[in-house]
């Protein structure tokens, strides 16, 4: 579709049609959204405040996110808060079509997302979302912000700011900012403490393993599982794999993270040494070609390859396809078998794309509750304007992180201590010593 046929910049036609796989799936999507909402009490509390305060009144929000039942909670919050949401998928395979249909049926929401699109359609959907001339952007992986800067520069001036969900996306934003390109403030929602501890560690840790098990039904007890990357996601994956009785080997490029893995009792090896040992491989690095074709040729027959990182470059899928003498797609849903010259078979999950969202259901609602609550509060804060934020990458204000944590504690009836005035003085003062 040519650019000329697109809606001119600056106008957002009412009733712009959504593009979803099957609007009829909405009836199936609604109960799942309701189910997720039950496990998202923090977001519900923030949504109540948003409905009362209408921070997004009159604003257009272009969002590029995984279209899941949990994301539906954030989208609802934005519309309840007065905004209009234009949602594209942040991964060609991760869209849950019933959720997309249910969201598309809601007033104030327009959805451009289908599971299993090709690359062109994927980017087409992002353009359609941008057609709204957004005031705020919500991104996951930086494809929307990248497209905005590269191909829709006329829209940049209208954007107050936005937030980015994932580590890989934040890394891209920082590089854009370093090159002086980033035109508005973007908040790195992935880098907050709550995000690292809960979404990355607990959420990805659990859901990546879940995705692998749903895709293969393999027993993890007693198996050698190689986890590439010992950041918050890798740590979570390693921990949960251990919990199922696996023997985990970690690979790393960062010496501090490598030492952390060793101190926690994991063997750390170069991938070349781990490749012949592993039975299941999971990448969580944010880098590319972490598992290369050369590594794959030394793997055991039946080794399973999965990626938990945002983009599908961590496992060199193209290299694997070139090395294989035969490809048997779909030996199980989300599992393709690649046969090497000597007959050894490697099983690639989810085409090397983010396994927890493709083969599983993504991070559980309970942790997305916290992540999305942080993002919602960040967006409301950005919507206020001012704050003197420069174009560039900013952290989540600590007060927002703490507020969300308090709401999460309250939702669990967990009580904590309060500093006394004397304690607060002590912590604020440098005079008290020995």
């Amino acid at each position, binding site marked *: 579709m040519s650019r000329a046929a697109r809606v001119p910049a600056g106008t957002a036609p009412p009733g712009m049609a959504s593009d979803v796989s099957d609007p009829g799936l909405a009836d199936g999507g609604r109960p799942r959204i309701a189910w997720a909402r039950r496990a998202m009490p923090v977001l519900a509390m923030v949504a109540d405040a948003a409905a009362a305060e209408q921070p997004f009144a009159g604003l257009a929000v272009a969002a590029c996110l995984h279209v899941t039942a949990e994301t539906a909670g954030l989208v609802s919050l934005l519309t309840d808060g007065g905004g209009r949401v234009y949602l594209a998928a942040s991964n060609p395979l991760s869209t849950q079509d019933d959720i997309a249909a249910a969201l598309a049926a809601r007033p104030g929401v327009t959805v451009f997302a289908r599971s299993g699109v090709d690359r062109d359609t994927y980017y087409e959907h992002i353009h359609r979302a941008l057609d709204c001339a957004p005031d705020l952007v919500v991104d996951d992986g930086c494809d929307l912000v990248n497209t905005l800067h590269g191909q829709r520069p006329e829209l940049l001036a209208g954007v107050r700011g936005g937030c980015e969900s994932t580590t890989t996306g934040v890394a891209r934003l920082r590089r854009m900012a370093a090159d002086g390109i980033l035109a508005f403030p973007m908040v790195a929602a992935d880098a907050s403490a709550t995000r690292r501890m809960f979404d990355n560690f607990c959420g990805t840790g659990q859901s990546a393993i879940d995705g692998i098990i749903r895709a293969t039904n393999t027993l993890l*007890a*007693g198996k050698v599982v190689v986890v590439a990357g010992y950041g918050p996601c890798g740590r979570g994956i390693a921990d949960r794999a*251990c919990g199922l009785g696996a023997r985990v080997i970690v690979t790393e490029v960062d010496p501090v993270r490598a030492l952390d893995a*060793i101190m926690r009792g994991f*063997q750390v090896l170069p991938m070349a040494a781990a490749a012949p040992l592993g039975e299941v491989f999971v990448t969580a690095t944010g880098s590319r070609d972490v598992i290369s074709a050369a590594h794959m040729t030394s793997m055991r027959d039946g080794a399973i390859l999965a990626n938990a990182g945002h983009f599908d470059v961590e496992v060199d899928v193209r290299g694997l396809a070139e090395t294989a003498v035969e490809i048997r797609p779909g030996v199980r849903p989300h599992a393709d078998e690649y046969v090497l010259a000597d007959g050894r078979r490697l099983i690639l999950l989810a085409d090397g794309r983010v396994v927890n969202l493709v083969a599983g259901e993504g991070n559980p609602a309970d942790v997305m509750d916290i992540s999305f609550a942080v993002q919602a509060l960040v967006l409301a804060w950005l919507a206020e304007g001012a704050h003197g934020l420069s174009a560039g990458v900013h952290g989540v204000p600590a007060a927002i992180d703490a507020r969300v944590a308090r709401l999460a504690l309250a939702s669990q009836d967990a009580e904590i201590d309060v500093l006394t005035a004397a304690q607060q003085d002590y912590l604020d003062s440098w005079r008290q010593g020995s």
Partner: protein
Amino acid sequence: MPAEPAAFKVADLSLAEFGRNEIRLAEHEMPGLMAMREEYAKAQPLRGARITGSLHMTVQTAVLIETLTALGAQVRWASCNIFSTQDHAAAAVAVGPYGTPQDPAGIPVFAWKGETLPEYWWCTQQALTWPGESGPNMLLDDGGDATLLVHKGAEYEEAGAVPSAADDDPEEWQVVLSVLRDSLTADPRRWTAAAAAIRGVTEETTTGVHRLYEMATAGTLRFPAINVNDSVTKSKFDNKYGCRHSLVDGINRATDVLIGGKVAVVCGYGDVGKGCAESLRGQGARVIITEIDPICALQAAMDGFQVSRLEDVVGSADIFVSATGNFHIITAAHMSGMKHQAIVGNIGHFDNEIDMAGLARLPGIRRVTIKPQVDEWVFADGHAVIVLSEGRLLNLGNATGHPSFVMSNSFTNQVIAQIELYTRAADYSLGVHVLPKHLDEKVARLHLDALGVRLTTLTKRQADYIGVPVDGPYKSDHYRY
């Protein structure tokens, strides 16, 4: 050896007050034993019992001893290991709850930390010698040394001679033969008479139980035995959770080495090995298991441990712990091939799991004592390994053994077993027995309140559905927990 036994022998009576304080604290942590005292105070089921105990003379054992006496027994006690005695506990037991160091009024106890082998066997004999009697009428054994002395003594008396020691006999065996040789000379019917008077033995540990089953199979067992080790509330708790606690305690107190990040090898994945593996893993070590039993090996693999042969990992691991109940698991050749300052220890009952004699015979080997129960052994090429407690069980040698609460489980089983064998000897045939399951469950029940456990009760219909009484026993004998 004097004809009249000594009243007691401990390291230092002035430690009694410290010992008494720790005994008092331990009583609070040993609800099973205290419940036994309360239940049986009136009935005095052990009145008339003369119990010889051969069991690590620790604070926890003191509470066991004073439970036995509270139930009416007389006791004479020795430790079952040269390093495991806690001298303040021994002093408190000798002084008793109502005596003073100047005027001891406790029980005859013969135990101190750091005995020589001849001293150890002297202590054991003292505990077996009852003034005016042929000996004890009950044995309470841990590892079977008291049982051994009685059985071998009687065997050699029947043969009329004690065999000579072979040159390659372990030093300890040479001491035993020497003791029995002297005894045969002094009184050729001493042990035969002693064996005849013993109603039975209650045995605490895997290794001692193994010895009993061997004797029973060979037809040489002279009195019935209760295998306390294989009460579920003993071996699935003491052996596993006790070692989980006390292994790293012993390693910490001995070496203060950081365990996180180290590679540790545990030889053996039985109940003790399982506890040891968890102990080290819990502190961040990467644990490798060695095993000869395919079932245990598969368990270890499924629990996420690498299972290798010792030869393959001996050069790369930092810590080695033997927990097999077998001998010469870690040899001099293994130790020669270890990394500099690798730590080597044993948590099995006997000290032959590590070939200490073989190590000492290596050409050019040199021993440097770092502190009591911690020795550096320097090879001819200058590299060294650190050996704990001379290869004797390191949790007792380098620390204080298992904590009170888990020993309450074990020792409540011991008290129940002593009562059973003493009061119902006729019901126990010559052989090795385990306590019935309802008593095993009773021991567990006695420890629930202290941990805040709220137990669910079966309805009558539920009980009928699975075919058990509402109050238990809840499992068949072949259930493995």
